[in-house]
């Protein structure tokens, strides 16, 4: 169906269902319970990040997963997309449509230029080139060099770009919403459903982002299964041999690079549409590194792995970093005092500001024991419990690299 084989279609439906029911699935605990206070992740801002960063890494995976070219500067496209979107809010109106369109277009243009130059080299040199470009763009944005050149504000330096009341916004009329909206449908308005002790929030902005992620995911399946995708895999296997057969790999590489840059631009535009402020730090090299970590953690070259990786990292960053000692004391309050204090002391380094440590350990464990990322874990569990016939079925989520 939809041009997908039955296995891919099933996977696609699962992803759709997860997106639709995320507000419920991510809030498994009652609001007032201590587990709910700590571990519920089903609030709009975080769910938006799950799908937007999922989209970003899906795009990144088209480049890295298929061709093996590791771009270390993808955050630059994310940042460019965000800046483009916020400028649309400042100049036209809070409608997200022009913002999202322009963010994709601008990121596409930037990736054509950067890709054209960076793709002259492969391997580590390619990574370094993309990193260098991204850092240049970061520095330009951080010091607002473009703005200084024209004597105006373009990126607004470290403070970041936001919309002010005195901006032109030429398409704004009297009654227009003053928050990002889709033809009047406000992004931040939500519907809260309370059932017993549970509370589920269905927010417009989240669902718009989720639709884009589902579209992006569908496109990525089609690319993975297309002759074009096969060509990209061939490049990963042996680019030199491809050239010897008389095939020019450059256009394929550039196309993959631009597509993944546009995904990043779209993600940047969506980030701005959910929260109309952006800054240069979104382009910093650590942000690019985070994208790489997300892809590797989830499973490079798999279809859903990247989304999973993005989800895990955003979860750790937003949930684990907020657990503090007093919450720990609540959890272990039933224990004798000395044991309670011991437990808190043991866990303390891994929570709150120590969430990086938790992430680092998780990353090491995955890289050492599961080189195929978290998707490989899924496979292993499936083969462990599945019947014989399931053994090939288990791979449904994981597309094996071609080599």
């Amino acid at each position, binding site marked *: 169906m939809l041009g997908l084989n039955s296995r891919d279609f099933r996977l696609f439906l699962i992803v759709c269902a997860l997106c639709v029911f995320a507000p419920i699935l991510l809030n498994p605990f009652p609001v007032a319970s201590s587990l709910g*206070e700590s571990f*519920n992740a089903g*609030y*709009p*801002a*975080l769910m938006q*990040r799950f799908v937007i960063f999922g989209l970003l890494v899906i795009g990144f995976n088209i480049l890295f997963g298929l061709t093996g070219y590791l771009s270390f500067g993808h955050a630059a496209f994310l940042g460019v997309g965000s800046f483009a979107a916020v400028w649309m809010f400042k100049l036209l109106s809070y409608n997200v449509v022009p913002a999202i369109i322009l963010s994709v277009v601008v990121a596409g243009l930037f990736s054509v230029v950067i890709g054209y130059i960076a793709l002259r080299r492969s391997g580590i040199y390619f990574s370094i080139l993309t990193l260098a470009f991204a850092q240049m763009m970061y*520095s330009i944005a*951080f*010091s607002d060099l473009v703005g200084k050149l024209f004597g105006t504000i373009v990126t607004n*330096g*470290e*403070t*970041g770009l*936001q919309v*002010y*009341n*005195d901006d032109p916004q030429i398409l704004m009329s009297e009654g227009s919403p003053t*928050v990002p909206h889709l033809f009047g449908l406000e992004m*931040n308005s939500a*519907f*809260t*459903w*309370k*059932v017993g002790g549970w509370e589920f*929030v269905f927010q417009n902005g989240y669902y718009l982002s989720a639709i884009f992620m589902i579209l992006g995911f569908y496109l990525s399946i089609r690319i993975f299964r297309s002759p074009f995708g096969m060509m990209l895999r061939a490049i990963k296997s042996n680019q030199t041999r491809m050239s010897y057969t008389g095939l020019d790999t450059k256009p394929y590489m550039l196309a993959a690079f631009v597509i993944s840059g546009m995904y990043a631009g779209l993600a940047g535009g969506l980030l701005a549409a959910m*929260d109309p*402020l952006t*800054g240069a*730090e*979104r382009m910093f090299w650590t942000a690019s590194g985070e994208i790489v970590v997300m892809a590797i953690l989830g499973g490079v070259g798999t279809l859903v792995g990247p989304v999973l990786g993005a989800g895990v990292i955003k979860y750790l*960053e*937003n949930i684990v*970093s*907020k657990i*503090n000692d007093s919450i720990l004391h609540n959890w272990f309050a039933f224990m004798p005092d000395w044991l309670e204090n011991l437990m808190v002391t043991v866990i303390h380094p891994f929570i*709150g*500001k120590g*969430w*990086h440590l938790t992430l680092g350990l998780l990353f090491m464990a995955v890289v050492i024991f599961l080189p195929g990322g978290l998707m490989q874990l899924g496979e292993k569990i499936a083969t462990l419990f599945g019947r014989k016939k399931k053994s090939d079925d288990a791979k449904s989520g994981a597309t094996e690299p071609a080599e």
Partner: protein
Amino acid sequence: MSKSNFSRRGVLKTGAVTAGGLMLPTYLRADAHAGYTNAPQGDTVKIGFNVPQTGPYAEEGLDELRAQELAVEHLNGMGDGGMLNTFSEQNLDGTGILGKKVEFVTGDTQTKSDVARASAQSMIQKDGVIMVNGGSSSGVAIAVQGLCQEAGIIFMAGLTHSNDTTGKDKKANGFRHFFNGYMSGAALGPVLQNEYGSERSAYHLTADYTWGWTQQESMQASTEAIGWNTVQNVLTPVGAGDFASYLTPVINSGADTLILNHYGGDMVNSLTQAVTQFGLKDKVVNGNDFKIIVPLYSELMAAGAGSNIEGVFGSMNWNWQLQDAGTAAFVKSFGEKYGFPPSGSAHTCYVQTLLYADAVTRAGTFNPCGVVEALEDFDFDGMGNGPVTYRGADHQCFKDVLVMKGSENPTNQYDTLEIVEVTPRAQVEYEPDHPMFAGGDLGECNPGA
């Protein structure tokens, strides 16, 4: 594909559950009727402390967090009450806020605007906080202030010294107790004239972001007002680490004073290099002894720079060495709990939390618009800064400013700075439409949903 067996019982059951589920939301959306976002339910109220726990300002952030926890203890009637006893308003009696026990959540901003906003959003959407306090670095404070304005939450800014926070980026739901770049300049000017005369040439090194720019602008204006000449202003990237290439041209520029508009680790590095590597303090230029000025001081920076700050002038919002009753009470309870004196940023966050609690009590509601009204043009005393006013026009606090100098003979490890002068408030006041602050729009208070 799976095949499903419909049974009469199954259909009835599913139908009933679905119908029940669809009916529930219609009458359970009670919170929407309270008239403002996150109206506290039950007998507790939650506030959010959003501070940098990692990154360049982590030290400041962690000290802020200590003070915030202390403030919550005092509000809930634990400990010795600290400044509650010296505060000119005596509405807070240790029973929480409006009889509701205060709970708090914490978040790590990492000194990044995006992360700070994500953390604040999670506090607002998930934890249901009614107020966010914190924010080291002006960029972060401005970003979070904007977010709180949109969400309909009160933002009590912590350590933010840029003119823009209550200037062109001011917001109706945001309040700043800390002083700003203009006040530093205005307080330092006369002291510098007294000490160094009016025949000097200043060379500025400035951190390249909103705080650095406004700080430099303020210092240039106030030093030129006392007759000094500005040789040059050089912008340096934040977190540069090595400032040698920026310091080399200073010696031959003809300047006899170096103004370091740096903060945190940058200031420690640039000052240390200027003193030890270039020996600027021992130079004589134009017949004047070479001098260095650091407009914004903090205890943590002073500790980092060690003996290099001896005799270097700067300014502070508050210092634990002040002798008034409020300071004594706060330093005592902070010291008893943590074993060392609080920093200026800890003080400002502590005071902001109490001011919020008091404003809610006076307004009789947690509604942000009520709180804004209670805080605007509010006069208070007993919080360590003498008589203070929260100005309604831009939500900036006006109070005395401390001019500090690096101690020549520190007696202990916390005695790194000495108070030179308490500059009276009248000298650092300015009009809301002063050119350095003009262009912003406070907007209307936003109660949210």
